[in-house]
């Protein structure tokens, strides 16, 4: 989100608001709602997320348990609400760190071209040559499961995607007139890169980041498939789905509700991503 506002904080703020359609407002409102629900989960949630109700396992949705209960009788609504805290964090941190890493590295490589670009190109090639999930799985297996190690693994792996996008875009625009003009005016490289290059190349990276938000949560789910996701007793949507996968046929609510939570959240995030990219495109329309 911070990257979004740097882009938006252009002189055209009023235009920005004026051209904002319902998708952005809707997306922002949605994410704010999810965030609020997450923040106030202890006040809103009807039960304790780790309290077992062994007498009432696998109850279908009812008035007492809106989303039903899991096999240990834990209230799924409560767990979905608490999980939002972890998942918003996973999505945000899992995007921001690699985004910053990748954008900075990719920008400079693309701007200078030459040997920094050649080296970066090979590093990117090596990391992208690994299937994403395999690398994350191997790193987590090495470091041990847990949220911190998950962030380390995600950051080590996914910055290259951003670097690749930004580098490609930067290579495409570095020869354009306004960059050359800025250079001939004697502006510092940093100023050219961040004031002139960045706004012109950031859009695809941001669009990718918005889908990456969801991909990070899904990566957490895939790790949960191997028991290496967020560790118990902390509820997390991906792990809830992975742990409930044997109940898909007999007690589908165990996996449907956390799944819906991921889908809804990703929907809001995508709306924001698409709208932001539309807006930036309009502002920087040649």
């Amino acid at each position, binding site marked *: 989100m911070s990257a979004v506002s740097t882009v938006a904080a252009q002189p055209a703020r009023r235009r920005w608001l004026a051209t904002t359609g319902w998708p952005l407002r809707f997306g922002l409102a949605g994410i704010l709602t999810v965030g609020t629900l997450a923040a106030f989960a202890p006040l809103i949630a009807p039960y304790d997320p780790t309290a077992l109700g*062994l007498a009432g396992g696998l109850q279908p949705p009812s008035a007492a348990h809106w989303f039903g209960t899991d096999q240990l009788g834990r209230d799924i609504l409560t767990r979905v609400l608490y999980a939002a805290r972890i998942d918003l964090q996973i999505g945000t941190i899992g995007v921001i760190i690699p985004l910053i890493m990748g954008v900075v590295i990719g920008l400079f490589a693309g701007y200078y071209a030459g040997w920094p670009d050649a080296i970066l190109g090979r590093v990117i090639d090596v990391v992208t040559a690994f299937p994403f999930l395999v690398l994350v799985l191997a790193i987590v297996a090495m470091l041990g499961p847990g949220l911190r190690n998950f962030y380390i693994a995600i950051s080590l792996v996914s910055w290259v995607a951003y670097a690749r996008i930004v580098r490609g875009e930067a290579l495409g625009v570095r020869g354009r007139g306004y960059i050359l003009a800025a250079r001939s005016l004697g502006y510092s490289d940093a100023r050219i890169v961040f004031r002139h290059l960045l706004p012109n190349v950031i859009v695809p990276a941001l669009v990718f980041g918005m889908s990456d938000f969801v991909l990070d949560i899904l990566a957490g789910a895939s790790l949960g498939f191997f028991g290496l996701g967020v560790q118990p007793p902390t509820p997390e949507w991906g792990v809830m789905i992975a742990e409930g*996968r044997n109940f898909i046929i007999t007690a589908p609510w165990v996996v449907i509700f956390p799944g819906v939570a991921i889908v809804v959240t990703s929907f809001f995030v995508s709306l924001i991503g698409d709208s932001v990219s539309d807006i930036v495109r309009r502002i920087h329309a040649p």
Partner: protein
Amino acid sequence: MVGSRPSTQIRLTALRAVSLLVAVALFIPITMLLPRPSAGAPVVTLSMARNADMLTWDPYPTGDDPSIFTQMIVYDRLVKLAPTNRDVQPELATSWKMAPDGLTATFTLRQGVKFSDGTPLTVDDVVLSLTRAIDQKSEWGFLFSPVKSVTKVDDKTIALHMSEPFAPLLAALSTFAASIYSKANYEKYGQAMTQHPLGTGAFALESWQKGSQLTLVKNQNYWQPGKPTIDRIVMRVVGDDNTRVLQLQSGQVDLIDFVPPNQVKQIRGVGQKVYAVDGTAVLRYTLNETIKPLDEVNVRAALGHAVDREAVAKNVYFGLATVAKSLLPATTLYYDPNADPLTYDLAKAKAFLAKSSVPNGFTLTVQLPAGNQTLLDAATIWGNGLKQIGVMLKIEQVETTTLIQIRNAEHYTVYNAAWTNDTPDPDELMGVAMDFKSQHAAHTFYNNPEAQQLVAQARRELDPKKRQALYTQLQRIESRDAPQIYVVDVPRLYASSPSVVGFAPNSQGKYGFENVSKR
């Protein structure tokens, strides 16, 4: 902005282009509906989906269940477990005799038995197979520790020589580790026998695409006349529990293993057969006594009384498991449910904890193999009980191979074990649990000379009544000192289509196919 909207014309064209693409997209599924070649060979094939592939055909270094079960199909043994699980019956041996001093056992070999390649089974094959089996350096040598040598008596008799009377001998000989294979084949392949089995069992190896598919074919030279009635068994590796169930329901396979307990009711509901084999394993927590305060018997007893076993049986195994009342599974010989078992009793747990050095509780870590939902749920239930006596249970999921390493290096705190029981005799389980010398009593560091002496005595004792008394005493000691906390008797679950008849896995988990037919 305003002028850049596409015209109506362009929209129409786009729609046409889209419909073209949709037509192309539909083409694929349509071509898929074309008639498919059918594999129309007139043979009876039984297909089975298993959760993992086997690794080796050599019993010597075998460690995994799929290898054990598959070797049991392709190899025979001198004796086999009776359907009652209590006794053994003749297999490759027709009769046997124990010397009065209990130090020599002689076995008469069945005559006319041939390996699947047509070569006859001889005494030499048996001597070689068993000599490798009793090698104390092999994975399973411990099952035969008093057996010192195997010798040929004459062309149809072998003798086993023991250093002391050995009551579990016949039970040990019924395990896969005592499988009989061809000496010529072993000498031909050496190390590579792991890939090339030759046995006298009802089926022989046809082909093996490692990690994906194993095909067994009927042994034309099988010694039991008229058997087997199935021509070919195809064993596919399908790691996902749901997929195996769905494959059974869609008719892709006839038989599956590792049925998720929660789906048993639903599978039975649609008319499939479910086989729940009791007594293959007891789920239990192994405590490392080098980690304080687990060295205190009061702490261990408190932990043992805080497991809600009913809840584990009901919520985790959906009523298919039974509450464990001993370290031994209920199907084991000399099992005694009345030897003061550990029960779920929080008042008792609190009382024990109060007598310990940590009366107000402490934090305990349990290491579980990652991805095993059953163990995770069971531990969560334990943690719920422990919380009420002030003990915080921290669950760590560790990647499986890493976990075995941690366990072997004895760096674990609490380890969750559920070994498959290999013999109906309690000697294996009690021996492993109490023998401090070989593996620090299953890595618990529980060192009780009295119990060790009882295990050795029970191994020597040939009188069943006296053995019962010894094992009852051992079970009482185990429950009192709680080096390992037993939870539930875990069932092993298989399911098949109704057309499969005669499938009867035994308490070792063995499933043979010589009596199976397909309607």
